[in-house]
């Protein structure tokens, strides 16, 4: 929610490696942190324009060092915000603060941190018959940014069948991810509604009757909705369905889910952009819509209806299917493509969408225009609007926006906007009985763990350790000592399973606490979780995970019906 300007001056390759803090004990030499600390403090210094909406909810202090590492600013930009003070002064001060401390948390403390945001939902069984192919889901998130920039959403469609689940990774603040987490599912649900239902809703609005409910949300108490913007958001949504009603050709009501998802994504991003351009007479709302538009968010959304699973992805969050093979082992099936520099076809797309002479500048240092890591996102109008439009909006905007160096900064080599789109890539998968669960997670998870490990850990967790491959000596030469070592290790693994009632929590425990042997190391977990707020982001990203469990019996029954 806070957009605190002051992007990182030095591009730190966050994704590939963390500083070797944990190779040693916690009281590491302070020098090691120099660049980091300086950055944090710089942002603190220059981030004077920290404007907070819902401060009580998400901003514990007025000065929150923001470190949206998704931006690796241009070298020219670095000079532009060089501090005037002698930075030595600064590091001296910092040194005092970061005096080597032992951050030791007890297991209950660790658990209370890990479980603070966990949420579980079980699809209720009606008359003992569970007609849903979804058993339920577990979700959780662990902040690294303060406040967290990730968001998550889950809802059941009430006027159509199916369930929607999504994770949203914000950057340059949490305004955009918050808005998308509140609004996107309505856009999708509306896109899926048949013509008659849309008419009925519109007529109800028109005549002041009670509306049909569209979504049943499944929210953690910490997942909030903006009250102030609710009316604005509703009006935009209503405009959308009115257009859908007008566009209806009356031919067929066969709604294509894939198309609906794409339309919903694009429409919402369009509305975000429009709302920022039009502005709002209410200054608070005016400022809000601008912050939403100038920050960004990726989205990875799954729509499950019976055996039909659609994953719509924009950005670099990921959807992973957990498949149990006949021998009980687990394999991972990726149901989304990352939209970043590691994706050849995305590089290709960007090059095709812009003139040849931009081929070298459109992606630099694996970032869009050398700045942005995800190649698709909501918001981020800095990568979408023309320079003119950006300047106009900023100038006519509130002072806070005008004073913000970041928003004023125009990306380099900015010739043929838009460079960024919110259009999702939709992958369809027909569920099979062996598809046991789906993991939706932001890149905070995927950059620390291999997908195969992720699926195995969740699979073993969900099925319990009984289904873990039993050890058999069978012909091998094994000594009692070797066996003992192996068993002790397995037991350690098992005990971490029993600590968690939530698959997402269990996964986070592994993501943060895994040692080189793939087992949770309490020492490491304790250190990672006790990092001071301003350092946490250096060692990990926000992690948001949703684990959806499928009902194999229902899925199997669907299959049999059709055979």
């Amino acid at each position, binding site marked *: 929610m806070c957009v605190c300007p002051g992007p990182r001056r030095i591009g730190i390759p966050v994704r590939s490696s963390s500083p070797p803090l944990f190779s040693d004990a916690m009281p590491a030499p302070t020098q090691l942190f120099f660049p980091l600390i300086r950055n944090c403090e710089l942002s603190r210094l220059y981030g004077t324009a920290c404007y907070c909406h819902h401060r009580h909810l998400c901003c514990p202090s007025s000065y929150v060092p923001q470190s949206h590492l998704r931006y690796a600013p241009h070298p020219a930009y670095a000079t532009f915000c060089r501090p005037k003070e002698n930075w030595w002064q600064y590091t001296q001060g910092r040194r005092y603060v970061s005096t080597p401390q032992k951050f030791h948390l007890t297991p209950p403390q660790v658990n209370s941190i890990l479980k603070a945001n966990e949420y579980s939902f079980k699809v209720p069984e009606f008359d003992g018959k569970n007609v849903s192919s979804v058993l339920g889901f577990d979700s959780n998130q662990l902040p690294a940014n303060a406040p967290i920039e990730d968001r998550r959403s889950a809802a059941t469609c009430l006027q159509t069948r199916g369930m929607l689940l999504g994770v949203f990774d914000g950057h340059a603040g949490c305004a955009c991810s918050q808005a998308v987490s509140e609004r996107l599912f309505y856009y999708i649900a509306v896109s899926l509604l048949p013509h008659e239902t849309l008419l009925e809703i519109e007529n109800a609005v028109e005549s002041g009757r009670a509306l049909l409910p569209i979504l049943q949300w499944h929210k953690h108490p910490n997942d909030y909705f903006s009250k102030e913007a609710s009316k604005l958001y509703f009006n935009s949504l209503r405009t959308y369905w009115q257009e859908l009603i007008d566009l209806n050709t009356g031919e067929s009501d066969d709604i294509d889910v894939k198309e609906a998802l794409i339309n919903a994504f694009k429409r919402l991003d369009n509305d975000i952009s429009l709302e920022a351009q039009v502005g709002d007479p209410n200054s608070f709302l005016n400022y809000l819509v601008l912050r939403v538009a100038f920050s960004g968010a990726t989205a990875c959304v799954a729509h499950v209806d019976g055996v039909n699973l659609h994953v719509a992805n924009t950005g670099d969050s990921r959807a992973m299917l957990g498949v149990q093979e006949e021998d009980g082992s687990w394999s991972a099936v990726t149901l989304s493509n990352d939209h970043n520099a590691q994706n050849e076809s995305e590089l290709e797309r960007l090059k095709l969408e812009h003139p040849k002479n931009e081929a070298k500048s459109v992606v630099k240092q694996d970032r869009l225009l050398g700045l942005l890591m995800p190649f698709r996102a909501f918001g981020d109008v800095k990568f979408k609007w023309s320079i003119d439009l950006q300047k106009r909006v900023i100038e006519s905007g509130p002072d806070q926006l005008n004073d913000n160096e970041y928003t004023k900064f125009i990306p380099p080599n900015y010739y043929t906007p838009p460079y960024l789109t919110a259009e999702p890539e939709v992958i369809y998968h027909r569920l099979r009985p062996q598809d046991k669960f789906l993991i939706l997670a932001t890149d905070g998870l995927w950059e620390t763990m291999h997908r195969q490990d992720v699926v195995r850990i969740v699979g073993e967790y969900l099925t319990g350790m009984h289904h*873990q491959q*039993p*050890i058999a*000596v069978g012909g091998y*030469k094994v*000594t*009692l*000592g070797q*066996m003992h070592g192996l068993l002790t290790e397995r037991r350690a693994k098992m005990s971490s399973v029993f600590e968690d009632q939530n698959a997402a929590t269990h996964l986070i425990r592994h993501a943060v606490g895994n040692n080189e042997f793939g087992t949770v190391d309490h020492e490491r977990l304790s250190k990672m979780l006790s990092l001071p707020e301003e350092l946490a982001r250096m060692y990990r990203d926000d992690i948001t995970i949703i684990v959806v469990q499928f009902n194999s019996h229902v899925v199997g029954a669907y299959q049999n019906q059709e055979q």
Partner: protein
Amino acid sequence: MFYRLLSVVQRQRTSRGWQNWSSARSSASAAEAHSVALPAQAQVVICGGGIMGTSVAYHLSKLGWKDIVLLEQGRLAAGSTRFCAGIISTARHLSIEQKMADYSNRLYQQLEQETGIQTGVQIYDRTSVVHVMTKKGEVTGVETDKGQIECQYFVNCAGQWAYELGLSNEEPISIPLHACEHFYLLTRPLETPLQSNTPNIVDADGRIYIRNWQGGILSGGFEKTPKPIFTEGKNQLEIHNLQEDWDHFEPLLSSLLRRMPDLETLEIVKLVNCPETFTPDMRCIMGESPLVKGYYVLAGMNSAGLSFGGGAGRYLAEWMVDGYPSENVWELDLKRFGALQSSRTFLRHRVMEVMPLLYDLKVPRWDFQTGRQLRTSPLYDRLDAQGARWMEKHGFERPKYFVPPGKDLLALEQSKTFYKPDWFDIVESEVKCCKEAVCVIDMSSFTKFEITSTGDQALETLQYLFSNDLDVPVGHIVHTGMLNEGGGYENDCSIARLNKRSFFMISPTDQQVHCWAWLKKHMRLDSDLILEDVTWKYTALNLIGPRAVDVLSELSYAPITPDHFPSLFCKEMSVGYANGIRVMSMTHTGEPGFMLYIPIEYALHVYNEVMSVGQKYGIRNAGYYALRSLRIEKFFAFWGQDLNTLTTPLECGRESRVKLDKGVDFIGREALLQQRQNGVYKRLAMFVLDDHDTDLDLWPWWGEPIYRNGLYAGKTTSSAYSYTLERHVCLGFVHHFSENTGEEQVVTADFVNRGEYEIDIAGQRFQAKARLYPVASLYTHKRRKEDVELSDLHGK
């Protein structure tokens, strides 16, 4: 060893498969078809070719029974018997188990010489019993998958399948046992292979056993978290392909390597999974079914099948041939259980508690934690709210004592002690209240039968079954033994004559099945005698103490003075609003007071009235520990603890309860007449410990050796601290073993009185005074004036 037992028994080879396998011990030929026809009839059919079945067959043939068929569903000795770790341990918990194990040990050593003797047992493997056929409560034959066999006797030695086989009967027979997976490890030989004389090691703290196996080691154990198996009764022919579970074995492996770190380098051969069968009380199950005559059971060995095999088989064979075994086996009798212990959930939960207990310290007065609150009195919640701590007998919850508000007892784990327990003071105050004021004890668990007839059959039958004279005026209560042919106690009960043709009989809680079976067995089938189990119909409150009479008279407006209501009388009267309460002037402790038998719907009312009226007399709740202390100090022997099927009334000073000349014959009379003439060979006595420090010395519990003039003379059967005598009191039998031959000799009162006694508690001997009759002063307790305190005026 086992194969020797087999070869002694086996005469008729039923198949080439068996032949090959027995010589080569390979399973290669196991799948061959068997076409040998079963005989049409036999005297005995034994189901189960493990060590139990073969041992029973062996002993039956030794006792002269020749017409025996043994059926095995798989191959002979293919179950637990084959896969067990092969340890024969003779250090057992119960003395009857000790005797069985000792006998087994001797038997196994001599078996080798017997090999080749013709016995007459026919063995058929690959034959499974479908169900047992019965008619009029008697075994008539066996239905197998290969045809029927007519027989008089059936022996269920089906091990972990015994429960299912019992249930398959038309009238299901409850054999409460349940299997748990059991793991042990085999390794390759050590660098210097272990010698065959390497001792077996049990590390009870580490929960493991270790023995030599082909120069390497065999090590298993009894883990804290057992894995029950076959709860749903999933059957399978043989158990050789159960999965190894290394993760489950990890704690045991850890403790093995902790104890013997050098074993680390040993190479694993495999982990064997061999389910073992456990029972709800960790004792094996043997004896005749209470429901079907001729249906015998021997199963549930709690992982000690090899140790017990010989002895258990022998006792069961004796039981079948002679009608009773040569030792008292009540602790192992199938009839200690009823259908109430037959729930699969109960068994599953209970055996998970029993199995770890094998290597736990077995402290006195241990109560199981699982399978509780099954049978409860209607007052359970009321008593529980007042601090009751509970024990369980035959599924029934009984209060042990009441923890006063604000008093903290030690945690369960810490109160496990052989020394003075933490409830000492609590029980003391309850006892004191019984002696000086009045206490109420809920004794609803006692077994209660009503015997009624249209004519004189009830009296005639009871006169034949009981040793005391029951032809007493209506309203009288008679203490009497229910004796067997040998004059031993099958049951010890109190019988009230309700009217001319109706009797009310009270027996110990765990007699519910046994006594019922005994009565049924000896009642004439054609008589119009009605026997009814009314245990569940009445809540029993024991009102103990000198003020009980005040409480009762206030509640009934009836004269309760000894003139109107002498001791050992039974009257129906009203108590509070409730009418038809059966009031008996006895307390099972020798203290003054009353037993109230209350129809259950009145229980709460009567209890409330008693408590509220009793307040001014200082009434309080008390539990069984207080009762126990009171009854033992007065030399009240209890059946099941002090008395058993091998003790006669003459041996425990109860001549007065036997009316040899009542004019009617009764079971056991002949034996008692003979005993009266010849004298007794043991005598129950009460021992008061002299130099025992209650606070510092280990307490006697039961089973402590008694020394007379320095010579072993018997064992204690029960003991308690007497708060009145301020001494420990033990009950126990004095024998007279000849110094030269060890032979038992006649014990006279003189012999008992002239001895100097010591009780040996865990190796330390304490001087004790033996008494053949209770201490008289206990019955005349008048409080001395100078002992009265102000606090005695306080309400309790």
